[in-house]
């Protein structure tokens, strides 16, 4: 099998170093010892590096990036969206902030029955869940050192002065043009999509950011901005009210911990994708992947089968722990449970997709007790639960960014508006998410994602920080909906088992492993022999161009033992890395 080093050499490192206007350096791939920011748009990465240059810490920079992404990538995240962050501070403190959106009080199955099918409401204000990004920023500010006014300044400047639209902005606007033409024609360029090279300005968002910077994030939930959103919802048939906004709180949690081959991972817990990543790695730990390679069909087969098993469990068992009495997260991520699940993988044959939901959903419940051994459980041959209700794919939007400062504080932050441009409706310059689509369309007895006011929907995001021997080694995460889990697992396996550097690990072709896709979808740089053997094993293979945005856009940072930071901007999304000062050694 081919060496990834030969095919995907880190060729960009010495190219395209751009000293930007605010005392920082920007490039698709960059090295520095002074701090590093990677984001899906180089302008947002630059905003974060500018804050590091001004003496802010990683959390300050992350807040600036979050706000800047809402300007330069309004289709993927923004004030009307939600997310989750994991932070590991240089003093050892670890924090996760859950700023996932919540269903408003009027979002009940009774009202849904009157309004129509959940799917048909995707691009209406009814699909909006109470946004969490401003509250998440509010919680994050307590770990930062600079005032919001200063952190919002780059975003306000970008919104006011404008910026040159890149290919991704143009392509996404074109893809979503029909919804925008209907719901937010004012966003378009004289009714047409924005083309790469044109200058986009958003004075309404600049005004909104200024109000928040001056009055604090609660202005969004209790002040003029809340009134404005309430008014929009009442006038346009939405369900969110000012009372929902007033009730919203971001939650500070402990990151969930897991281990893989001596590395320690800190991830967000249920209802997002962190536990599934850990559960997948727990299964993969039983195979010596290091003897294989990124394009070995056996490795691809094992990883895909493991990811299907964990996707089935995630769909059955994971949900909002605040509004569900029983979420067996501890069992799901236990090593003993992984052994039980590993028994289901046939080394020579792909599992039958038609049996996935009836025969391959597990029950991590017994493993909630740390004493439980898989041998006892298997001998009892428990009857399996089954997944009910429809399968929904989640949209490919979302954005992830990573920040490390020179003191070693690290932040992994993923935020989203669900579909690209969310509902397609704009209020005060920001787009409204359509997270409501992540709940069950109909009540299903025992489902952790039944629609319930105040409940956070389940999604696949998984910002994470990986440590080795107590030192932060990688900060990463990705957008990509149902591909987030597979892309992140593959990057981790590339880094740990195949010993690739970060750029090669990200650049190497990706494949899916998710129960919403009955086939393996993969980027077309895999050797033909690999594809042929996978098909012989019973996999149906669908090929995509390589690289394709469909497989996510990780923005990640690695930290070498000597402290050298390497930032890799999303190769599949025109992303960038930025560092304070004149970086690029």
């Amino acid at each position, binding site marked *: 099998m081919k060496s990834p080093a030969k095919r995907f050499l880190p060729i960009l490192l010495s190219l395209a170093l751009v000293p930007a206007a605010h005392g920082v350096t920007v490039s698709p791939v960059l090295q520095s010892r002074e701090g590093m920011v990677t984001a899906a748009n180089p302008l947002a990465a630059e905003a974060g590096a500018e804050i590091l240059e001004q003496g802010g810490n990683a959390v300050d920079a992350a807040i600036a990036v979050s706000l800047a992404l809402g300007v330069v990538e309004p289709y993927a995240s923004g004030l009307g969206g939600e997310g989750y962050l994991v932070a590991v501070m240089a003093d050892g403190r670890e924090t996760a902030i859950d700023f996932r959106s919540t269903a408003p009080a009027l979002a009940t199955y009774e009202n849904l029955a009157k309004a129509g099918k959940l799917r048909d409401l995707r691009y209406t204000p009814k699909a909006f869940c109470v946004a969490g990004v401003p509250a998440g920023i509010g919680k994050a500010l307590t770990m930062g050192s600079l005032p919001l006014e200063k952190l919002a300044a780059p975003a306000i400047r970008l919104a006011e002065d404008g910026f040159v639209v890149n*290919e991704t902005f143009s*392509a*996404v606007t*074109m893809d979503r043009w029909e919804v925008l033409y209907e719901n937010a024609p004012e966003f378009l360029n*004289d009714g*047409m999509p924005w*083309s790469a*090279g044109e200058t986009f300005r958003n004075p309404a968002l600049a005004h909104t950011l200024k109000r928040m910077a001056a009055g604090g994030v609660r202005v969004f939930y209790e002040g003029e901005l809340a009134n404005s959103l309430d008014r929009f919802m009442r006038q346009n048939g939405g369900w969110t009210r000012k009372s929902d906004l007033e009730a919203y709180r971001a939650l500070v949690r402990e990151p969930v911990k897991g281990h893989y081959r001596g590395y320690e991972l800190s991830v967000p817990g249920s209802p997002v994708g962190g536990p599934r990543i850990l559960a997948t790695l727990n299964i993969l730990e039983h195979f010596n992947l290091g003897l294989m390679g990124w394009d070995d069909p056996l490795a691809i087969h094992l990883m895909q089968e493991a990811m299907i098993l964990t996707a089935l469990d995630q769909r059955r068992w994971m949900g909002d722990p605040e509004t569900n009495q029983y979420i067996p997260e501890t069992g799901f991520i236990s090593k003993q449970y992984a052994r039980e699940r590993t028994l289901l993988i046939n080394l020579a044959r792909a599992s039958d997709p038609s049996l996935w939901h009836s025969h391959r959903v597990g029950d991590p419940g017994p493993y909630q007790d740390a004493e439980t051994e898989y041998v006892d459980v298997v001998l009892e041959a428990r009857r399996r639960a089954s997944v009910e209700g429809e399968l929904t794919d989640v949209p490919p939007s979302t954005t992830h960014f990573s920040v490390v400062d020179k003191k070693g504080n690290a932040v992994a932050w993923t935020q989203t508006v669900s579909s690209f441009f969310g509902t397609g409706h704009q209020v005060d310059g920001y787009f409204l998410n359509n997270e409501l689509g992540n709940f069950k369309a109909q009540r299903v007895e025992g489902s952790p994602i039944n629609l319930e006011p105040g409940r956070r929907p389940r999604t696949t995001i998984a910002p994470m920080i990986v440590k080795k021997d107590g030192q932060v080694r990688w900060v990463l995460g990705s957008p990509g909906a149902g591909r987030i889990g597979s892309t992140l697992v593959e990057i981790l396996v590339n880094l740990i088992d195949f010993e690739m550097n970060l750029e090669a690990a990200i650049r190497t072709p990706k494949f899916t492993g998710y129960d919403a896709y009955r086939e393996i979808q993969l980027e*077309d740089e895999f050797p033909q022999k690999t594809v042929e053997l996978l098909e012989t094993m019973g996999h149906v293979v669908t090929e995509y161009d390589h690289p394709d945005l469909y497989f996510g856009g990780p923005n990640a940072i690695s930290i070498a033992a000597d402290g050298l930071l390497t930032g890799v901007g999303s190769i599949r999304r025109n992303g960038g890395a930025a560092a304070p000062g004149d970086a690029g050694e």
Partner: protein
Amino acid sequence: MKNRVRRILLALVLCVAVSGAALADGVVLTPFGQSPDAMMVRVVLKKLGVDGRLDKLLEADGLQGEQVLITVVAGSSKGLGEAGIDKDAEIARMNSVVAAARQAGMKTLVMHIGGKGRRGTLTDLFIVEAVPMADKLLVVEGGDFDGLFTRLAQEADVEMIPAPSVRETSGPLEAILTEWGVLP
């Protein structure tokens, strides 16, 4: 007072009638690859005063005596799926529509408006088929980043007209439709 209101209403009705009549017809639009891009071209045409008829699954017998066929090329797996056809059926459809258009003496304009973001294996497959069908080719410049359109246009001896952006296709589009007699 009543008479004044009546006069205003009458004037409004006349305005609407006149502006409706002012829209030229004579153009039929269909996507080649089932992306939504043809709808954008329809909006551009409307701004030029041309009421282009959009038929996503236009067939040879669906031509209604128009002067110009515009096909907007860009592959969309989602669009093909929703239309219930595969790429081979889409190519066959376009071959038969263009053949019928030629027989009817119509001009065919092939457009690609999506720039670099609307290029890829599927779209390129349709582009290779579409360019030789064209009497003229109108391409938003980013879409020709690798010279594919330039090469195919040269090989097929088709005039290629570049436009900087979707919005700025209106100028060349107006010139083409004037030359072909749709616009005065």
